[in-house]
């Protein structure tokens, strides 16, 4: 039971990678890259969690109470917002690829040269 978060992180990573290599559409591929990124959130969350502890906000709880790790949450926070912007950039690239080659299929794109 205590290995479930780690197993879920590894599973999401592997299934996202499978989606990337077996994809027939560039937009589907980009979304699978997003799934791979969310596996890192699950792993970071699992590393920072403390059983029976509260959120690291001390507005209404006294300062000495057990709280979960705030450093890891700070990492995840900026990562979530930046991920969406990077996906927007990748989608813009996919649109330009479609404009030039007329197809969104990675297998057909590989055959084109130059």
């Amino acid at each position: 039971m205590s290995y479930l978060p780690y197993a879920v992180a590894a599973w999401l990573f592997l299934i996202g990678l499978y989606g990337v290599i077996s994809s027939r559409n560039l937009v589907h591929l980009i979304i699978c890259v997003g799934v791979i990124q969310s596996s890192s959130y699950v792993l970071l969350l699992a590393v920072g969690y403390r059983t029976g502890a509260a959120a690291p906000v001390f507005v209404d709880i006294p300062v000495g109470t057990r709280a979960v790790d705030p450093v890891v949450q700070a990492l995840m926070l900026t990562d979530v917002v930046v991920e969406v912007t990077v996906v927007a950039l990748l989608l813009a690239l996919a649109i330009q690829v479609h404009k030039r080659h007329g197809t969104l299929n990675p297998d057909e794109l590989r055959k084109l040269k130059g």
Partner: protein
Amino acid sequence: MIVLQALILMFVAAAGTAVVFTRDPTSQAIVVSFYGLLLGIMFFVFQAPDVALSQIVVGAIALPLMIMLALARVKKQSRKAQK
């Protein structure tokens, strides 16, 4: 609390699998929105309210919106190329 955590983790794993195995990008945008909401609930259950705030707005609204807009643009381009 432990049961809730295990349950939400399994839902997240199932939703991630569903996102990958939905091949059509238009339907995939809806599944991604649901997946983002599940991730937000998972952050909340694991005592991370800041991250849950970002994830709910970004993952359930901004990301599917951008996917739909990109797909509509691609459809318009292929329609123009066919003419």
